[in-house]
């Protein structure tokens, strides 16, 4: 009887009560945030009337739009690269024994547990030195900016992707790969036709997580950013210092909705890929990382 059965009676009711309280706890601030994005008053805390003006303001403010653009560029590039590299990393660590595997295994987890500030500072130092060297050795001049931000985001995203994909691979029955090989599939064909489709939920989860992390990161970004590379969270950070206006709520409501759409897509995508409903776990588990870097 592997299927779950809830305990009966009052305990169950208590559990349910607790659960719904927790959800209330989760959604109270979000609800407030969204509501006040429609507040026509300057001050977020006092409701004076409904209006879309903050959304309009947002659409007019090309600083915000610029920041949004930057965020999206960084997020997508870093997500794609990190997903590819992270997946390969997970494959190698989970499937093969090779020299340096132990060390790599260790390194792979460090970016997850390193404090943001440290990550930011060390990348700052690194880029500074790198730029110095590039300049003095090859006379190549390059600046901090979207490029360096993307490089930095990839650096921490790889680990998160790898961890999620690995969790997926661990449950993966490798006899399927043998079966494919036995049926005349080359290594690459086996990967394309069997392995990848089956770990897709994990990969999707990893990608999702990477995207969210990158869309929410302030600290690291601030350190490695350069001219014209202000990202949305960083800009919001600046705005907040000048006082929270519903404008910020509007912006973050938009981000919220955008992310939800993203999740929806990736989930739907994976539904079609493989019927298993529990695939969702990894995704969700993954996306949880979104908050880890606060």
């Amino acid at each position: 009887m592997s299927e779950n059965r809830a305990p009966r009676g009052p305990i169950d009711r208590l559990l349910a009560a607790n659960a719904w309280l927790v959800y209330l706890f989760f959604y109270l601030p979000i609800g407030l945030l969204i509501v006040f994005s429609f507040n026509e008053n300057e001050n977020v805390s006092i409701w004076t009337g409904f209006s879309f003006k903050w959304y309009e303001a947002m659409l007019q403010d090309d600083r915000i739009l610029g920041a949004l653009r930057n965020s999206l560029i960084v997020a997508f590039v870093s997500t794609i690269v990190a997903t590819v590299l992270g997946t390969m990393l997970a494959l190698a660590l989970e499937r093969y024994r090779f020299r340096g595997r132990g060390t790599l295994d260790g390194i792979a987890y460090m970016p997850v547990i390193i404090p943001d500030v440290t990550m930011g500072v060390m990348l700052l130092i690194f880029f500074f030195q790198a730029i110095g060297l590039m300049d003095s050795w090859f006379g190549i001049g390059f600046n901090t900016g979207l490029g360096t931000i993307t490089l930095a985001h990839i650096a921490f995203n790889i680990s998160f992707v790898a961890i999620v994909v690995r969790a997926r691979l661990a449950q993966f029955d490798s006899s399927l790969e043998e079966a494919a090989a036995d049926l005349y599939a080359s290594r690459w064909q086996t990967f394309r036709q069997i392995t990848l489709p089956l770990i897709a939920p994990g990969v999707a989860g990893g990608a999702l997580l990477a995207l969210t992390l990158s869309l929410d990161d302030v600290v690291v970004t601030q350190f490695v950013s350069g001219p014209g590379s202000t990202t949305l969270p960083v800009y919001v950070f600046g705005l907040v210092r000048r006082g929270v206006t519903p404008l910020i709520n509007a912006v973050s409501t938009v981000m919220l909705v955008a992310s939800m759409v993203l999740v929806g897509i990736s989930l739907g995508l994976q539904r079609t890929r493989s019927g298993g409903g529990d695939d969702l776990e990894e995704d969700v588990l993954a996306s949880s990382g979104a908050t880890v870097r606060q």
Partner: protein
Amino acid sequence: MAEHAVELAGVTKKFGDDFTAVDGLDLVIEDGEFFSLLGPSGCGKTTTLRMIAGFEYPTSGSLKIHGKEMGLKPPNERPVNTVFQSYALFPHMTVSENIAFGLQMQKVDKNEIGERVKRVLDQVQLSKRADAKPKQLSGGMQQRVALARALVNEPQVLLLDEPLGALDLKLRQTMQVELKELQNRVGITFVYVTHDQEEALTMSDRIGVMSDGKLLQVGKSEDIYEHPNSRFVADFIGDINLIPVSVVAQDRVKLAGGQEFPVATGALSSGEATLTLRPERLSLYDLDEPIPDGYNRLKVRISRRVYYGDVYYYGVEGGTGELVEVKEENRPSVELYELDEEAYLAWHPDAASLVVE
């Protein structure tokens, strides 16, 4: 053809440095024969199969398929297909996609793939479920898909790893018959792994009995059953009474109880040995009943009676020191022996063979 289907010479497989899963296997499997590997769990059957298929490489020894040395050839370059102990069906593909996979990899053209898949689907009576996902099939159906997926490629050698292990008695028996007939029809070489001795006996042309990675005996089903070459084989294949005796002459042995009996003339003329007697080769006679001449007799007391539907198993005690099992047909004509009743235990000397440890 002249050359052998599969040829293992001194094949050894070690896991880690110390643990030897397969130990110096010398084995030749003829083309078109149904060969079974039989042995208790963990004896190295699957490992052997995996080496033939190319999932593992021998630590040492040579492995030829149809005369060609396999060396480091990967599985996809070997003329071999496998039916996995755990089906290993692709969960994200339908039944027919699963079956078509191998052909697609071989770049067979669309139409032909379609036909061949259809044909094999009929063979395994799954045409109706062609578009189902493996999850939606019962154990028996999944097993048949796995089979079809391998068969459709018409490999020179088909490896089957306990393909029926998961099925319940009835379904198992039907599948056994189907498999056997199929093999007769397509005439490809089957290498069949099982730990069910009855299954092996029913289906195989030849059987190899393994234990602890070693091949103990290879031979026709009848030979293995009738003339086991070791205590282990005798005991593993079917029920058998193993009675310790001391050899007094080339053709005579003495029981613990002191009674002497003639046996088929054997190799040794003295020392300790084990007398093997199949329960069904033993019969019980009332004390006053005539016993066919030439038969050995021994007075015994009935101490257990177990009902098996078509037969009764009696446990009897006599001079042998330990309980002897006797199998008696259950026919209305025959009347039953009660517990503690006395009777004669009789058998023909040919029925007994001597093995030594």
